[in-house]
């Protein structure tokens, strides 16, 4: 289709006048070959009739004239830059959504899907008319505005060129939220400088393979979405979508590694799955994966060590990112837990179990230790992962998670109400990590002090008179307060127990939960996160500087500012990250794609947004770059033909 405003009015007139001029010249300046004939009498009679009929009879008979008009027509067409299949731009505001997720790195479209998407987007930008504005948004599981609304094609093109592939998963909802935000802002802001922007509707062009979950409706609002699927449906790809290490039959000494391998291609494939420890191959298994299905493979390792395991599938197909997965197993991290108590059998007993000793180093002290300089130094430097204050309270809160039993933290954030006797437990947050598997139904208290929770806190156990157990954040730490003492007994004196809780199974369970949740204690750990997810670093409370080595070998040093919780988010690379800090054992975190939607690279034919299904326009090409070249080539060909005919007849 020809954009009528490609040329101004007078340019159209000039263009239209050229063929007319040729026809006129044809009559005026026609070069006729002279030929003597016996008599022109009959010829004159013959053409007199034709002349009388119509002027077109003469026009019809000139191959040269036809060719000349054809040349002018082709050149004229080339001048207005027509396109083959370019869709009409419905609006004058374009929003280009470029999917940069892992699956867009697939190479079924040369060179990659992302490059193809960028190419098509670039063509769309090239099609923009003066006055059109466009914005470029790249998205994976997060969306970035690469270029805000502008009519500067050069800027748009360079921002398109700057888009890099990511290893992340896909979330269209994110992108649509950002898009909606952009358009809404423009809609609501009465900006006098760009009044026309408000009036015109926005057209969203989504360049993606559609590998994302359905999106809730409402996000689309007034946007007109065109889905341009990228990629070919015949692309074959095999990838790892799950990679887990678990304790084996003999949990303490063996390890069972399980991997699920998916085949996104249209044909069943037999491939090999290899397991490496570091760079050493330790096992290799053949595996048959059905077409568009998955299969599992399992490895049994005899020894459980701190290790980096890597699974590699052979002949992984178009997408290379999912051909490998890593898992790093760290030894248990044993942190120091301080128990300050005047003498309480229950807590000491619970922290003295072999399991608790395995998970943490427990220091037990009397309340007078709180006054010592050593304690204050350790507490303020974050030496302890968890401090338990039984019926006592420090002068200042330590740089650690805390549990207060029968006492309140210093300060006036926590308050208590008058004590009640024989309270009844009516509710507990059994989903909270602290109360997992903790059954309080058979626990009774003789007396208790209901708690007033500071802002941001949360009641964990509620009794009829108020809150019994609560948790509240403090900077990067958590404070847990139990509104009653377990026993009034001290090391020197014995007293009647206030509760039967320590006699129930739920008590040691609670204490182990405490160690796991507040002291970050755990068994051999294998933390796997998705690309771009932050590495939680809350346990490094005592460290002043962290060194993180990326899979590529690049090292990043982080300075820990005291009192500020922090994460490390630069986890784009796939592989194993090493976290080192003085005073802490080395920790490894593996970043794996492990995403079934990304591995299944078959482009979706349609996407679901709310109740609306939007079909992909696979052939959509905002492309007319070649058309004028073809036309000019055609014109040259016609010119050559004309030359041939001319020389032959001349």
């Amino acid at each position, binding site marked *: 289709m020809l954009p009528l405003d490609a040329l101004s009015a007078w340019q159209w007139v000039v263009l239209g006048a050229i063929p007319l001029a040729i026809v006129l010249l044809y009559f005026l300046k026609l070069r*006729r*070959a002279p030929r*003597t*004939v*016996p008599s022109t009498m*009959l010829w004159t009679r013959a053409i007199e009739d*034709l002349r009388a009929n119509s002027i077109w009879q003469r026009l019809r*008979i*000139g191959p040269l004239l036809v060719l000349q008009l054809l040349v002018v027509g082709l050149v004229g067409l080339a001048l207005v830059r027509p396109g083959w299949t370019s869709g009409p731009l419905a609006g004058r505001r374009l929003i280009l959504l470029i999917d940069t997720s892992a699956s867009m790195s697939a190479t079924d479209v040369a060179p990659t899907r992302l490059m193809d998407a960028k190419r098509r987007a670039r063509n769309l930008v090239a099609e923009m008319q003066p006055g059109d504005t466009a914005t470029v948004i790249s998205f994976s599981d997060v969306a970035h505005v690469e270029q805000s609304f502008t009519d500067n094609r050069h800027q748009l093109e360079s921002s398109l060129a700057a888009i890099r592939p990511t290893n992340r998963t896909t979330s269209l909802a994110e992108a649509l939220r950002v898009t909606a935000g952009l358009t809404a802002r423009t809609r609501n802001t009465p900006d006098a400088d760009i009044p026309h922007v408000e009036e015109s509707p926005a057209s969203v062009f989504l360049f993606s393979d559609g590998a994302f979950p359905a999106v809730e409706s409402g996000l689309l609002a007034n946007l007109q979405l065109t889905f341009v699927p990228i990629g070919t449906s015949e692309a074959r790809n095999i990838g790892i979508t799950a990679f887990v290490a678990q304790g084996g039959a003999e949990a303490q000494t063996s390890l069972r590694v399980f991997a699920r391998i998916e085949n996104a291609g249209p044909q069943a494939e037999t491939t090999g799955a290899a397991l490496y420890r570091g760079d050493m191959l330790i096992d290799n298994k053949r595996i048959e994966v059905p077409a568009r299905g998955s299969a599992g493979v399992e490895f049994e390792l005899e020894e459980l060590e701190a290790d980096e395991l890597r699974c590699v599938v052979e002949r992984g197909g178009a997408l290379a990112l999912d051909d490998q997965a890593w898992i790093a197993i760290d030894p248990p991290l044993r942190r120091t837990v301080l128990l300050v108590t005047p003498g309480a059998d229950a807590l000491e007993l619970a922290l003295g179990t072999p399991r608790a000793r395995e998970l943490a180093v427990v220091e037990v002290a009397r309340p007078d230790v709180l006054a010592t300089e050593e304690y204050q130094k350790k507490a303020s430097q974050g030496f302890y992962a968890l401090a338990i204050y039984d019926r006592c309270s420090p002068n200042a809160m330590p740089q650690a998670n805390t549990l207060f039993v029968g006492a309140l933290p210093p300060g006036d954030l926590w308050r208590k109400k008058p004590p009640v006797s024989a309270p009844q437990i009516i509710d507990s947050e059994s989903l909270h990590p602290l109360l997992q598997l903790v059954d309080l139904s058979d626990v009774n208290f003789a007396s208790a002090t209901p708690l007033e929770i500071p802002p941001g806190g949360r009641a964990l156990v509620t009794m009829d008179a108020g809150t019994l157990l609560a948790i509240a954040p403090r900077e990067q730490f958590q404070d847990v307060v139990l509104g009653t003492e377990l026993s009034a007994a001290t090391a020197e004196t014995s007293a009647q127990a206030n509760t039967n809780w320590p006699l129930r199974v739920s008590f040691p369970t609670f204490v182990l939960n405490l160690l796991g949740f507040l002291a970050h204690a755990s068994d051999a750990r294998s933390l796997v996160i998705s690309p771009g997810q932050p590495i939680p670093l809350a346990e490094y409370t005592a460290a002043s500087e962290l060194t993180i080595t990326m899979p590529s070998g690049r090292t990043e040093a982080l300075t820990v500012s005291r009192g500020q919780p922090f994460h490390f988010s630069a986890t784009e690379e796939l592989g194993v990250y090493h976290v080192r800090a003085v005073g802490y054992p080395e920790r490894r975190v593996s970043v794996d794609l492990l995403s079934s939607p990304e591995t299944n690279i078959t482009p979706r034919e349609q996407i679901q947004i709310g109740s609306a299904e939007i079909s992909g326009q696979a052939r959509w090409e905002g492309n007319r770059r070649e058309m004028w070249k073809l036309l000019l080539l055609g014109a040259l060909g016609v010119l050559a033909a004309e030359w041939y005919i001319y020389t032959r007849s001349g």
Partner: protein
Amino acid sequence: MRLSGSELLSPSLRARLEHLDLVSRKVLRGGMRGERRATRLGHSVEFADFRNYAPGDDVRFIDWNLYARLDRLFLKLFFQEAERRVSILLDASPSMQFGQPSKFDWARQLAAALAYIGLVRGDRVRIETLGQPLAQSATPFRGRVSAAAMLDRVASIEPEPPLPFSEGLKKFCVRTQPNTLAIVISDLLDKTGYREGIAALTARQLEGFVIQVFSPEERHPDARGDLRLIDSEDAGATEITASRAVVLRYEAKLAEYVAEVREYCRGRGIEYLLADSAMPVEQLVTDLLRRRGLVH
């Protein structure tokens, strides 16, 4: 181009022409006694009529048998055997110079062949051209002995400057005595028209036979493209873009013209024949003209 006698008439053609004769539909009047039956009564063996005797009549022709029965004198009249006059008019205008071989050469061959037949049969044969002045009549040939001179005359005819066809034909008619077999060989391509000339043939009581000749190139021109056509006679130019349609149109016009001439001649008792210069003269004379009754 000057043609030799043998080029005009090959010996084999001559041999075939020996057996042919020109056919007149009229009884002719010749100036000298010839082999033709003339309208003038004279001395021959063919009885014509009786008439009353008048003093001074040749008594040798009195029918004495009648006198014996009727006792009146009657004179027996006989047809006179007269020679026949044949005039062949050649169009030597520039338009005749076209074709391969040229229509003019072809017309000369035809004229020579027809003249030869006449000579063999004792006719008085004149060969004239359109451009000949009014008063200058061509020398007639008579008898087989004149064949060589006749061929010489035909061979010596040169192309002439353009002259209106009718004008030339009228002059020819004035020069020619009535009852002459007048054979006109021309293409009749003249913008000034042909009708007056043809009409003059009838008016002069000539036995006219018009042979219109066209070359194959004229009948089916191969003109293509943008052309500036120049008339060979008046040098007038006509610009055409010769498409298939135009050529077809031209051919239709030619057929129309031929039909028109034929109709006009027929209306005036003049025989007409359309000839193609590609046809050998021998074939034309021994076959076509024979069928059309000019020779037998």
